[in-house]
């Protein structure tokens, strides 16, 4: 009995270490490589060089802004849709799942040429200035984020007893906007947070849409640097990785006060 427990413990540790190595080794290799810009010397030269380029911060902050816009508009689109489907059209759930999985099947290159094909000629000429093109890029990002955000929201709603909460609020006199903003959204924060974090990561690293729409996002910048320099892209990858995680941490911290007290619906007796 005791021997089995020891073996179980060793086995658990083995898988944990293997998992950590799987994720950490590429990062560690990138880190070591990024520190070897100067021959026979460990230095931060690649980082200094990367930071010295004003394009880095410019493109990174632009991508972050796009990510925030994407998250806001995606939530405004997805939450009411998923809520309505859950409440009144449950038979459409498989259709919604299929629709939201399409970005996995249709490559981004098809999406962007579709966008350009439709919006670069009258009557919907939207690629002529930066503002409208940015709008198109955000719309494209919303499509790319659908599989992650819709799934998170869908799972959150499934865990929530949406019907009874909605009907309880209705019986107390609440209108639809109040139900959505005071009952549904606050109880979806954990689901929205995880969906938002994934969306943030996708938007910050996305290359295809931004490149073909000609906007100065971080993904194309990183791609461009990688074609001309050796050590800087590794340094930039790690920095963007760290910054993305920092952004995720801030969002997580901001919502932890609420998510920490998420309810157990229908708790014990």
């Amino acid at each position, binding site marked *: 009995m005791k021997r089995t427990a020891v073996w179980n413990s060793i086995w658990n540790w083995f898988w944990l270490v293997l998992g950590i190595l799987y994720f950490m080794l590429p990062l560690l290799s990138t880190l070591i490589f990024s520190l070897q810009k100067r021959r026979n010397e460990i230095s931060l030269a690649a980082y200094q060089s990367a930071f010295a380029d004003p394009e880095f911060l410019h493109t990174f902050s632009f991508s972050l802004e796009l990510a925030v816009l994407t998250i806001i508009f995606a939530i405004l689109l997805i939450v009411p849709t998923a809520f309505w489907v859950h409440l009144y059209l449950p038979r459409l759930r498989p259709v919604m799942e299929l629709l939201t999985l399409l970005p996995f099947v249709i490559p981004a290159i098809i999406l962007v040429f579709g966008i350009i094909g439709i919006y670069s000629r009258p009557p919907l000429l939207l690629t002529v200035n930066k503002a409208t093109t940015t709008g198109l890029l955000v719309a494209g990002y919303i499509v790319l984020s659908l599989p992650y955000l819709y799934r998170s929201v869908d799972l959150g709603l499934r865990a929530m007893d949406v019907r009874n*909460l909605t009907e309880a609020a209705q019986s107390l006199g609440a209108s639809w906007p109040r139900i959505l903003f005071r*009952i549904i959204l606050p109880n979806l924060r954990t689901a929205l947070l995880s969906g938002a974090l994934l969306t943030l990561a996708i938007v910050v690293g996305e290359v295809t849409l931004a490149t073909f729409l000609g906007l100065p996002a971080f993904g194309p910048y990183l791609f461009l640097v990688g074609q001309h320099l050796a050590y800087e892209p590794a340094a930039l990858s790690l920095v963007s990785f760290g910054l993305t995680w920092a952004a995720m941490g801030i969002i997580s911290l901001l919502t932890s006060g609420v998510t920490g007290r998420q309810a157990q619906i229908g*708790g014990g007796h």
Partner: protein
Amino acid sequence: MAFLELNGISKRFSADFVAVEHFDMKVEKGEFISFLGPSGCGKTTTLRMIAGFEFPTTGSIWLDGKDITTRPPNQRHLGMVFQSYALFPNMTVADNIGFGLKVANKPKNEIDVRVDEMLDLIHMADKRRSYPYQLSGGQQQRVALARALAIHPQVLLLDEPLSALDAKIRLELRSEIRRIQQMLGITTIFVTHDQEEALSISDRTVVMSAGRIEQAGTPFQIYNFPETEFVAQFVGTLNTLNAEVVDPAGGILRLEGQNIETSQARDGLSKNERVMIAIRPERISFTADGKKPNVITCTIKNITFLGSIVRIQAKVGSALFNMDTFNNPFLELPKIGDVAEVTFSREAVLVLDRRADQQTSSNA
């Protein structure tokens, strides 16, 4: 006009599924009505139509003299309590209770006063700042009740509010609901599939089956004078037996070759007709006096102790029936296989609406 009236309401969900059919009911102000029936009988659908979550296919609903048939649920001013509590997980107990008042744009001090009143009413003043997940099921349901009552609803609707709770809490909360209902004098509709719950708590009980009202009446009427076989079978424990009419005018029937009498007059019965009769187990007792009416000879087949009650199963001819007797340490019981004489009053023999089929049955 009654305070709440349901006039011939029906609910058809599809061409071949009718959930509720021609439901008529009048509820007076302050009454406590229970809808009782098995799953799928339409009791919850009827409640949901009153609440406004479903709209009737035909018929109308009137509340306090106003037609509310198509009024949306958030404009009906009814309080609703759900089986799953449905407390808002992101709000404290106080916020949950005050939600409806906040929706109605009541001033903050008025909301605070009302929330305190409600917390006192449910004896949970110390849980004001707790979140639902920090409460037990019974406490959550108390809060749900307080939340529904806080808005001074015209009618309180309770959809199987005790079903998710364990037996002890269920009993406590049942008394609590009745106490609060009587104290506030609020008109209440209570949906349950538990006959004991319905009979113990209500002024009137509506027994439903397959979308229709089987019988409506006081718990006493429902239990003692079931009008249909369904009510007889569903409410309480009942022996249902096949008998043959010997003398329709005199109320004499033949049960497995032995004559018995009933005081219940049933129009339209004819001699030699087969009918179904019902006798409650607690109305049957042992007797040594063969001169009494309704004495039948039977064989003891089984004896079961149920705590305060001892249930004895006996056989007369090919029919099995149960009799209940109160348990006590000095109780003298027959042995299995003994032949015994049992008796029951003429009033205890109920002739049911539906004609008996060929098979004699005993419902335990």
